[in-house]
C-alpha cells in the first residue's frame, strides 16, 4: 500500500511542476505579445537570451514527393534570420522617429494560442509550440492578418525564462501586405 501512495504523490508533483511551467511560459508569451503590440521593444529585447536566433523562412510550394531537404537558417531564403544585434538594429531604426510608414502609428493586435510545452529542460532549452495571429490595421482601412506557427526554445537564466531560439513558420507564401514590419 505504501508503494502505491508514494508513486501517486510523485505523479502529482510532476503534474504540479508541468502545470507551473506551462502557466509561466504561456504568460510569458502573452506578455511578449502585449509588449510588442504596445511598441515596448526595449523591454521585449530584455526577454531574449543573448544567443537568440530568430528565423522565419520562405514557405516554398514544393510537390509532396519533392525529396529536397527542408530549408535551414544557413541555407534558406528568409524573411527574418536575425541574431540579437540584428533585432537591436531593427529597433534602433524604429526609435529614430524617422520611419514615416509607422507614423501615424498602426494598430497591432497579436493573439497567441495553441501553447504546448514539448520536450527538453530549463537549462538546455525547453521546446515550446504556439500559434500567433497578428492583425495590423494602418491608416484608414489597410488591414492584414499574418498567422504563423512558432517553435521556441526557452532557457531559464536566473529566475527568468529567456527566448533562445524562435523558428517561425508563416502561413503565407506571398505576403499580402507591403512590408512585414511586425515581429512574430
Amino acid at each position, binding site marked *: 500500500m505504501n508503494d502505491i501512495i508514494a508513486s501517486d504523490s510523485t505523479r502529482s508533483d510532476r503534474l504540479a511542476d508541468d502545470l507551473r511551467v506551462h502557466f509561466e511560459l504561456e504568460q510569458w508569451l502573452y506578455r511578449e505579445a502585449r509588449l510588442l503590440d504596445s511598441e515596448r521593444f526595449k523591454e521585449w529585447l530584455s526577454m531574449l537570451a543573448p544567443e537568440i536566433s530568430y528565423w*522565419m523562412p*520562405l514557405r*516554398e*510550394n*514544393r*510537390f509532396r514527393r*519533392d525529396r*529536397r531537404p527542408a530549408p535551414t537558417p*544557413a*541555407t534558406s*531564403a*528568409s*524573411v*527574418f*534570420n*536575425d541574431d540579437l*544585434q*540584428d533585432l537591436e*538594429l*531593427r529597433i*534602433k*531604426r*524604429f526609435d*529614430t*522617429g*524617422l*520611419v*514615416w*510608414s509607422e507614423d501615424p502609428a498602426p494598430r497591432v493586435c497579436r493573439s497567441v494560442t495553441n501553447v504546448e510545452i514539448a520536450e527538453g529542460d530549463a537549462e538546455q532549452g525547453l521546446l515550446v509550440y504556439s500559434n500567433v495571429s497578428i492583425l495590423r490595421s494602418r491608416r484608414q482601412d489597410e488591414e492584414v492578418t499574418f498567422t504563423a506557427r512558432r517553435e521556441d526554445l526557452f532557457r531559464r537564466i536566473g529566475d527568468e525564462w529567456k527566448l533562445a531560439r524562435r523558428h517561425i513558420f508563416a502561413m503565407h*507564401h*506571398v*505576403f*499580402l*501586405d*507591403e*512590408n*512585414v*514590419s511586425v515581429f512574430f
Partner: protein
Amino acid sequence: MTAATVDIRAMVSEDGSVQDRRIYWDEAVYNLEQERIFARCWLFLTHENAIPNPGDFITTYMGQDRVIVSRGRDRKINVFTNSCRHRGNLLCAADSGNTKSFVCNYHGWVYGLDGSLADVPLESEAYYNKIDKSKWGARRVAQVESYRGFVFATFDAKAPVLTDYLAEMGWYLDSFMDVPGGAELLGPPVKVRVKANWKLFAENFVGDWYHVGWTHGGGATAIGSPFDVVVGNGLCLPGYQVATSFGHGFAAAVPPDGSIPSMHQRDTKRLYDEFMLSRRPANLQRLGPERAKLHDAIWDCTVFPSCSFLRGIDTWKVWQPRGPRELDIWTWTLVERDMSDELKQMIRHSSELTFGAAGIFEGDDGENMEGCTWGGEGYITRQEPLYLGMGEGKERRSDRYPGTVHADHACGEIPQRNLMRFWRTMMTCDSWDQIKEQQREQAERRAQFDVRPEAA
C-alpha cells in the same frame, strides 16, 4: 477608355519630364502595357543555377502570363505558358522542383519538359487516335537567352536579340557579370504584394538616390556611416547617373577615396571588402578602370521594364504587375560565384535585413508607392500632372562611359526621364523597326551633348 482611345502621347511629355498620373491608375493604360510592353520586351525569369539539371523547373510570370521555365534533357532552357491546352487549367502549381513531365490535374494530359503535348489518357478509346497532339502543346516563348547565367525571355519573335536589347547596359552589367566565375542569384525569390503601380518601383530603382536620405532616414541613421550622411537630404553623394537605349539606366555612388560603400555590416562587411579588394587587380585588367570602380560601387539599376537590382546591398528584384494598382515584388540576393558559401549566405542575410520582405529599407518604399498610386483615386487629383525634371539640361556624354551621363553627383532624374520616354515609345510604336528608329534618333541627339571627360 479603350485601348483605341488611350492617348499615350499626351500622358508623357516628349522629354519625359511630365506625366499624367493616369499612367499609374488607368485600367486601359495597364491593358495596353500588357500588350505593348510585357508581350514584346525581354523579361527576367531566373538564374540558371535555379535549374542546373535536366528536369529542373521553376514557375514564374511574364507580365500576368504564368510560365514554366524548365531544363530539358538536351540541357536547353524551355519557357512556355503554364496552361493546359485542353480546357486551360494551370499545369504546374509548384514553385520549383524536378520532374519528367507536367501533368494537368484536370484530365491527366501530359506535357514534356519542352511544353509539347506528350500523351493524353484514353487516346485510342476516347480520341480514336484522332487528336493531333502536335497542335495542342503549350505556347512557347519566341526567344530565350541567358545573359551570363541570367535568363530572360520574350514572347515577341521580332524583338531584337537580348544583347541588342540590353544595348549599352550590357557593358555596365558586365562590371560584375563578366568577372572570373561571374555572378549568380540566391533564391528562391521571396514575394511581397504592394498595392501600387509597378512603374513606381522601376522608376525608383532606375536612378532615385534623392529619396534615400528622406524615405530611408530611419534605416540610414541606424546603419550609420557612411550612409547616415544623406539623412535629411543635406547632400548628394559623389557618383553619376547613366541612361541607355531601350529605357535602361542606373545611378552609382562612387567614393573618390576608393573605399567600398556597401551596405553590409560587421563580419559581412569585413569579408565582402576582403573579397572585393582581392579582385581589384584582375577586375582592373579585365574590365578597365571605369568598370572596375563600378564593380565596387553601390548602385541602383533598372533593366526595362521590370527587373531591378541594388549592387552593394545586394538585392535583385522583379516587379510583377497585377493590374494598374497592384504588384508582387520578387526578391533574390545577388552574389559572385567565386565568393565562399559562407560569404554568400552572409550577403543573403544582409540583403534580406535591408531589402527583403522585412527589410529595414524596403519597408519604407511600399507605402510611398501606394500613396503615389492611390492619389489617382480622386477625380480632380488625378488631373494634376506630375513633375520629373531634376537635372534637366545636365545630360552629357562621355568618352569612357556609354549612354547619357550625368556626373555632377548621383542625384538626378535623367534615367527616370529616359525610362518614361522609352515607355512612351513602346506604348506608341507598332513595330520594333519604329522602336529601334527612335532609339537611333535618341543616340544621335546624345552625340550633340557636351562631353564630360571625367564622368566619375
